[in-house]
C-alpha cells in the first residue's frame, strides 16, 4: 500500500499515524509538505491530526483552502481513498469531503481520554477487519470534535450507512459515553461512496499493546489488506 500523509504547518500527529501505517503495511508513507506542488500517486491519502495553521479561526478552515487540499479533493472524487483523522476530519468537513461540521466540545474543554466506539459498519475498506456492532477502545484528543449536521443530512447518513463509528459505553450503549456532545454520538462518518472516512478518535494511538492497546490496528490492517 502506497500512502501519503499530509503535513501542514501545525500538524502534529503525522508521525503517530505514519508509524501505525508502517506497522500494518510494512512500508513507510510519503510525508507530503503542504507547499509541495505535487501529491505522489498513492493508494491512500491521510490527513493527520494537529492544529493546522494554529486552528485559530475555525478548526481546519485555513488548511481547507490550501492548494494541496484542492488536489486531495480532486483525487478523492476520482475514488482515491482518504483517511482524515481529528484535525484531518475537520479539514475534510470544511471542504465537504465528508458531510457535517465539527464544533467546539459541548463542555468547552480539550479532552484527551480513551473512549469506547461502536463500529457501525464493517462494510468498508476501512472497517472490514472489525465486526459490525463491535465495541473498540481508542483515544480522543481534541477541543473541537462536537459533530453536527442538519436533520436531512443525518437522515441521509443513517439511511445509507455512512455513520462509521459512534461513541458508546463499554456495553455498546450509544446513548452514553459521548465525550464532546456530538449529535447522535457520531464519532466518524464516510462520504457517500465510503472511500473517505473522517473520524475524531485516534486509531493510530491504539496500535501497540503497551502504548494504548491495539484496538485501532485493525483499521490500518484493513487498509493494508484492501489496498495492495
Amino acid at each position, binding site marked *: 500500500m502506497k500512502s501519503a500523509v499530509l503535513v501542514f504547518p501545525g500538524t502534529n500527529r503525522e508521525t503517530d499515524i505514519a508509524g501505525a501505517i508502517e506497522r500494518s503495511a510494512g512500508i513507510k508513507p510519503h510525508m507530503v509538505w503542504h507547499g509541495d506542488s505535487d501529491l505522489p500517486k498513492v493508494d491512500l491519502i491521510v490527513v493527520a491530526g494537529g492544529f493546522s495553521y494554529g486552528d485559530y*479561526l475555525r478548526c481546519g*478552515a485555513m488548511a481547507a*483552502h490550501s492548494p494541496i487540499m484542492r488536489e486531495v479533493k480532486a483525487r478523492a472524487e476520482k475514488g482515491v481513498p482518504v483517511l482524515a483523522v481529528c484535525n484531518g476530519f475537520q479539514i475534510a468537513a470544511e471542504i465537504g469531503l465528508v458531510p457535517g461540521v465539527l*464544533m467546539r466540545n459541548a463542555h*468547552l474543554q480539550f479532552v484527551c481520554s480513551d473512549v469506547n466506539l461502536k463500529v457501525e459498519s464493517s462494510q468498508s475498506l476501512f472497517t472490514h477487519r472489525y465486526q459490525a456492532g463491535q465495541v473498540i477502545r481508542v483515544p480522543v484528543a481534541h477541543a473541537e470534535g462536537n459533530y*453536527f449536521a442538519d436533520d436531512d443530512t443525518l437522515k441521509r447518513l443513517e439511511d445509507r450507512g455512512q455513520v462509521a463509528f459512534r461513541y458508546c459505553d463499554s456495553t455498546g450503549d450509544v446513548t452514553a459515553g459521548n465525550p464532546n456532545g456530538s449529535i447522535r454520538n457520531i464519532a466518524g462518518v464516510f462520504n457517500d461512496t465510503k472511500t473517505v472516512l473522517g473520524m475524531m478518535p485516534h486509531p493510530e494511538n491504539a496500535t501497540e499493546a503497551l502504548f494504548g492497546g491495539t484496538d485501532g490496528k485493525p483499521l490500518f490492517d484493513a487498509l493494508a489488506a484492501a489496498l495492495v
Partner: protein
Amino acid sequence: MKARVHVTLKTGVLDPQGKAIGNALHRLGFPEVGDVRQGKFIELELAETDADRAKSRLDEMCRKLLANTVIENYRIELVS
C-alpha cells in the same frame, strides 16, 4: 478603509459557548440574563477605497474563509 465582520451561529445551531456564559452569569449573580449567543468579530484594514468593491471582496472573504456558511451567518460593515 476599515471593515468589521461579525460571524454568528445560525439560529437552531447549538451554541455551547453562549450557553456556558449564560450559566456562569447566573451563578455569578446575574439572574436577569436570558439567552446568550457568542460570535466572532473580525476587524480588517483594507487597501481599498471604493465601498462597493470593498463589500464584494469582503463578501468573498467571508464565504471563502471567515465563516462556515453551513452553521454560521456573517454580517459586513464598513467603518471608514
